[in-house]
């Protein structure tokens, strides 16, 4: 092999086959060739080492027993999150202020405001309301579906705001929506309860045994019409649901209706104004109003 193949200045013995110098290390006759890393590679390695030392000084890095070193820059991911959250809140201030000062009607009339309110209300809904009403606001027995056009306490945006702000049967709020259906377990015989239930179910156009439903009519007028109305269409002032429509709050079918007559159940919705503030409650009201059933 010619000298042309000597690739470095190492002065060890030259390997005959490759023409490269050896490091002098030998294991069972196998000798290590002295092929150094390329210069740029080595310098890159040194640069990363220097970088790592600088990084350890500047940023939190070395774990201690309870904590870790803080780093000269005082950086923390938690702090970064806080900064970003503040920036996001800051960015929304202008719109949030306009929503705070506008009336609900003004918000609905202004596409820009209502769009923002719906988006903000949607995210507030997912955090605070979805637990009971469902993430799509479709409800479940005892928890009203907010998409439909059947409203126990009224479906105008002001009514919805009032409900969200002060809740339903929420203890400690003077303006809370309050009504309680009395139990008829004492006042009515079991048969009479079944007859009343049969009558109520027949009101939605579902055919029932006339022998049961017809006596139920008189019982309904005597006991229920005061709140639910002559035609059973409900009374929003009292929070008495419309019984003549296709939507059932506490459950569908005669058994569910009979159970409600016997031992009425009453849900409680918290008052959200103290917790979320007026702006967010406004946004929630606009969002619920936009779901399709708003009046």
């Amino acid at each position, binding site marked *: 092999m010619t000298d*042309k*193949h000597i*690739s*470095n200045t190492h002065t060890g013995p030259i390997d005959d086959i490759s023409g*490269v110098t050896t490091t002098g290390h030998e294991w069972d006759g196998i000798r290590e060739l002295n*092929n*150094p890393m*390329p210069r740029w590679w080595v310098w890159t390695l040194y640069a990363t080492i220097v970088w790592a030392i600088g990084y350890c000084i500047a940023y939190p890095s070395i774990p201690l027993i309870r904590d870790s070193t803080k780093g000269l820059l005082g950086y923390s991911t938690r702090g970064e999150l806080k900064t970003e959250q503040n920036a996001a809140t800051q960015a929304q201030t202008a719109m949030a202020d306009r929503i705070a000062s506008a009336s609900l009607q003004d918000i609905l009339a202004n*596409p820009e405001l209502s769009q923002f309110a719906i988006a903000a209300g949607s995210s507030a809904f997912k955090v605070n309301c979805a637990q009971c009403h*469902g*993430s*799509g*606001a*479709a409800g479940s027995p005892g928890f009203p*579906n907010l*998409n*439909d*056009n*059947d409203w126990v306490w009224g479906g105008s945006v002001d009514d919805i705001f009032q409900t969200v702000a002060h809740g339903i049967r929420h203890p400690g709020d003077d303006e809370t929506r309050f009504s309680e259906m009395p139990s008829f377990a004492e006042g009515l015989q079991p048969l009479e309860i079944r007859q009343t239930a049969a009558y109520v179910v027949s009101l*939605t*156009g579902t055919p029932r045994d006339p022998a049961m439903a017809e006596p139920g009519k008189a019982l309904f007028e005597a006991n229920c019409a005061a709140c639910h109305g002559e035609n059973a269409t409900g009374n929003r002032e009292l929070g008495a649901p*419309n019984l003549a*429509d*296709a*939507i059932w709050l506490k459950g569908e079918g005669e058994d569910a209706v009979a159970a409600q007559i016997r031992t009425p159940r009453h849900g409680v919705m918290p008052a959200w104004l103290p917790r979320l503030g007026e702006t967010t409650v406004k946004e929630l009201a606009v969002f619920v109003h*936009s779901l*399709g*059933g708003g009046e």
Partner: protein
Amino acid sequence: MNLYRSPMPAAADAPVERLNAEPVNSAQVRKPLYEKRKKIFPKRAEGRFRQFKWLVMAITLGIYYLTPWIRWDRGPHAPDQAVLIDLASRRFYVFFIEIWPQEFFFVAGLLVMAGFGLFLVTSAVGRAWCGYTCPQTVWVGLFLVVERFIEGDRNARMKLDAAPWTLSKLRKRVTKHVIWLAIAVATGGAWIFYFADAPALLSSFLHFDAPPVAYITVAILTFTTYTLGGLLREQVCTYMCPWPRIQAAMLDENSLVVTYNDWRGEPRGRHAKKAAAAGAVQGDCVDCNACVAVCPMGIDIRDGLQMECITCALCIDACDSVMDKVGHERGLISYATLADYSANMALATDNGTKPIDPRRVRKPEGGFSSAVKHFDWRVIFRGRTLLYFTVWALVGLGLIYGLLARDRLELNVLHDRNPQFVVESDGAVRNGYQIKLLNMIPEPRVIRVSIEGLPEATMKMMGQEGEARVFLIPVQPDKVTNARIFVTLPKAAIGIAADGFSLVAEDEASHERDVYKARFNIPEVVQ
């Protein structure tokens, strides 16, 4: 076409200076990868390929630098830059074509065409891309022009490089690198104009209030242009670029490659007359090393086809001018196919049984024997190139068809998934849909959104009054308009026929329309 043109009349045995040129990247002696790079000082070449390369260089650089400054009127609602990649609003403008992100397959199609175009060119004329149009080649050419202008041609540069550092050397070197850096900045600077309105960006760039990304991009491209084009040069092609490795699969025995025709050149020698007097055989190669001196890759083409060769053809020019001087036919180094070369080689070596004897390829009275094969242009049209061309053309036709047939109005519908349906108090069933209207022309329009099918159903649209089966939505130029609609089916109509329900968007004026076949969900109990 006969590439071996008849020579210019010249005095026989005109003195040809032998250049002291060593092939730095010789195929004979492979260097270890750890060896320090030896500098290459390519000599200036003159000739038709050099002329052609100047032309290609002017055209490619011109396209690159000037394209962003071409204006193209698209009306008041769209930018007037002919070629603009508007990343912020995600629109690509190329003259009369506007591309939305979902139409990016047009760009993919162009890349497929570029790929097959490269296959086609390579299989026909070898690494023409590398030698003529590759940005690395073009910019290295530009940087070499500067280097020659400041430091002189090959010998002067070699002398300067070996000279000790003096003020004069320092001045030359600084001037060269400053001009290189200026070119590099201009290269990076031209790039950013493809992504924003060029005149406005130039103004803000010079006033230092352009976005940081503009300065970062220019800095990165300045660095890469300066290092790749000025400092690394041929090492990019040899060590960094994968294409030289792929080319082997693209070439075949009928591809034109830059070839040293040793069947007429060997045995080479400096003293033809002396050799003739002594009765020795001598080929056309006068061993002047002109081909080595001009090579920007530092190879000796006479060693045969090598990976380093970018087929820039400058050695052809260098050799041709020498052949003119000594009165031989041009084309000792030429574009030739392996098939022709092998046939001629077989002729010169008597089928490989004897050393090369150029007398076998020549007629006694001068000129090549009729058995010598010259390039026949018909070999360009062979199965392989025709196949590449066909695929290339089909993709191109497909793209043109796609361009002519594409929609400029699109209706996208997202059916509410939660809740899937809502039962109203009168038993009617309601479904909600989020619709997106894509107005893909730079003009405002009014779009009719209507229901087809479900004759009993009515529609409500958020932000608009009343219930109807048709709503008009004004849409902004080149924008996506969102709308929320509720479709309500009365109780009596439920379960009759839920099929064939579609939402239709139609331009009031042009009647361009898009139909979305939608679903209408109803409660299971009712079904």
